């Protein structure tokens, strides 16, 4: 999918004024946060598990080459095929190649963020294949010709009313207005697609080095129907998804559902190991895994290795006040919110992604809920440093920051400046508020600025210390 992160500011303004979007986001906000908090509170070991999951991910990443080779050998031993893709275009070519070889006409898909990342649907459709997203949320946005706005709830930006309209246009009338009827309609339409599919494509939450199994975690069962009923099953996954053993997966499972949807477990966790065996009565005849690098191996070298721990739960965006105000589309690419603001510049490049690391208040809620303790605010700040060093940030801002540094590292100068500024601001205020301020109209156009009390922090501090 085409990246539109350069238009972040325009899209954010648009989002804030989109009444339907604000209605949908309002409904989502409380649910995810409250349910996760409840699950975390009900499991006394939750914090311990976060620490252990962080450490295990670090161990895996430090030995990633080994586990990838072990995984590949195990998949091959189970009769499957592993393909390696350096970037998005290689991944698309591999999957297209398989689809063409088996003369695929119809492709069903379980939810896969990597397939979004590599722009797979467009490539398959251009080559004359019918592509059907089977996750209900993905199906809704496919009908709307929109990208996902959330990594686990792709249609979270849609209201029920909008879904009713989309289904009416796609399936014909009468127009359904109850959630139960909408879900049922999609169920009936997709049932036939699963059985007719030549190729089923899913993601992979975990790739187990011990057994060569790919693991998917779903609530709907669509991923299972996709991978069981198609003639050929293709798994797309990032290289960082490998996990040493079946037992190790359990550690992550205990964190994933609780962090993502606030459930103790999702309904279905499925381990797929190779294609249909000689005496099996169902299952795909071919089983392929496409391991996608697309910038990940380069992230191992420095600070951003932490980001490769991500298990794609979406808790960071559920808890992000910026995401909660503008939704996922404003971010302009596949991964929104805090994790997306780190990943997008690293995968797609620093150009045209300038706003993403800056669209953050550094409030730290994302890091406080991340199940693998990714220090997202630190990584976002690190990206800002990089932008400064690579001279990507606006020249005016860089000069201002340089000036700030000059002043802030000279205490006498700093205190003098502060003394002047607090008095100036006090003079500009009335009733303790500043209603208009030059150079800060972006703030004062919409709200008042609280006026400082006319004395600097240091002066007040010294006064306080003088008291008993």
């Amino acid at each position, binding site marked *: 999918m085409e990246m539109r992160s350069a238009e972040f500011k325009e899209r954010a303004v648009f989002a804030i004024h989109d009444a339907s979007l604000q209605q*949908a986001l309002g409904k989502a906000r409380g*649910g995810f946060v409250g349910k996760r908090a409840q699950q975390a509170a009900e*499991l*006394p*070991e939750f914090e*311990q*598990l976060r620490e*252990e999951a962080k450490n*295990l991910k670090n161990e895996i990443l*430090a*030995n*990633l080459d*080994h586990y990838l080779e072990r995984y590949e050998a195990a998949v091959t031993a189970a009769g499957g095929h592993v393909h*390696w*893709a*350096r970037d998005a275009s*290689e991944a698309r070519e591999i999957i297209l190649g398989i689809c063409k070889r088996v003369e695929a006409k119809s492709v069903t898909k379980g939810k896969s963020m990597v397939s979004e990342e590599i722009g797979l649907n467009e490539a398959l459709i251009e080559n004359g294949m019918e592509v059907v997203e089977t*996750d*209900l949320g993905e199906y*809704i946005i496919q009908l709307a010709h929109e990208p996902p706005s959330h990594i686990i*709830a*792709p*249609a979270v930006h849609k209201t*029920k009313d909008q*879904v009713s309209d989309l289904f009416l246009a796609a399936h014909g009338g009468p127009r359904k207005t109850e*959630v139960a009827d909408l*879900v*049922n309609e999609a169920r009936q339409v*997709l049932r*036939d697609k699963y*059985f007719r599919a030549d190729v089923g494509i899913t993601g992979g939450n975990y790739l187990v080095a011990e*057994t060569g199994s790919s693991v998917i975690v779903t*609530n*709907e*069962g*669509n991923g*299972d*129907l996709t991978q*069981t009923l198609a003639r050929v099953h293709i798994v797309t996954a990032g290289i960082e998804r490998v996990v*040493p*053993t079946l*037992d190790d997966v*359990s*550690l992550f499972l205990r964190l994933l559902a609780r962090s993502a*949807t606030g459930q*103790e*477990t999702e309904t*279905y*966790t*499925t*381990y797929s*190991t190779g*294609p249909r065996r000689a005496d*099996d*009565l*169902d299952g795909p005849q071919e089983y392929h895994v496409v*391991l996608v690098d697309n910038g990940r*191996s*380069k992230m191992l*070298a420095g600070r951003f290795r932490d980001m490769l721990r991500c298990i794609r739960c979406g808790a960071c965006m559920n808890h992000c006040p910026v995401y909660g105000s503008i939704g996922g589309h404003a971010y302009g690419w596949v991964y929104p919110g805090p994790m997306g603001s780190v990943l997008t510049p690293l995968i797609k490049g620093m150009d045209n992604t300038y706003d993403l690391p800056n669209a953050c208040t550094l409030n730290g809620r994302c890091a406080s809920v991340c199940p693998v303790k990714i220090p997202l605010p630190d990584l976002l700040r690190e990206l800002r440093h990089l932008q400064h060093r690579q001279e990507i940030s606006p020249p005016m801002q860089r000069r201002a920051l340089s000036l700030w540094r000059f002043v802030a590292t000279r205490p006498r100068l700093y205190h003098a400046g502060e003394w002047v500024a607090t008095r100036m601001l006090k003079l500009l205020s009335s009733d303790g508020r500043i209603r208009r301020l030059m150079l800060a109209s972006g703030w004062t156009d919409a709200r008042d600025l609280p006026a400082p009390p006319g004395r600097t922090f240091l002066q007040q501090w010294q006064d306080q210390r003088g008291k008993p």
Partner: protein
Amino acid sequence: MTTARDAILRSVRIGLKRGALDDNQRAVLDARVPRHTRPAFDEDLVERFIRKFESRAGTVVRVSRRDEVPAAVEAYRASLDLPERAAIGAALKDLAWPQAWSVNHGAATVDETMAVTAAVAGVAETGSLMLCGGPDSPTTHNFVPDDHVVVLDASRIVTHYEDAWTVLRARAQGLPRATNFVSGPSRTADVEQTIQLGAHGPRRVHIVLIGG
């Protein structure tokens, strides 16, 4: 010519600032045993399993002996007024199913209405069923029909996920092509976060629990 595989592995090693691991280092990694924390609870395993499974909209009926299973499944079928037909894995072929039923031991087709599956284990931690695909238990039975009845022996209820893998490793057949952990009926919250059962998989999952 450099293959993508070699290029990626090389790039990983450059990122890790080292060369390929030697055999000794690999042996150490291969011998590693997972030692992560497992959630502690002292509730009775069978009671917890039932409580957790029911909390996710699953239903449970208890029988004392295996030969009582067909009558329990027939009672379930009749209560929902389902057609007299079922997809039943060969693992349960030996039971005396009602004569009137049309029984399919093969894969489930799109018009299948009810399936009956033997579970390999139950996990008390979350109330999850472990189902293993294979010639005597087709995976389509777990996902295609609207109604899924699962037969579980109470002695197969274990504490944690890890214990279920121990049960599976002890089987002569080894790891199947598909291992499904199922925790209740299919559900979705993709329309305005409203939970709706029966998205794509079974609308209802009913356990016939033997013994315990």
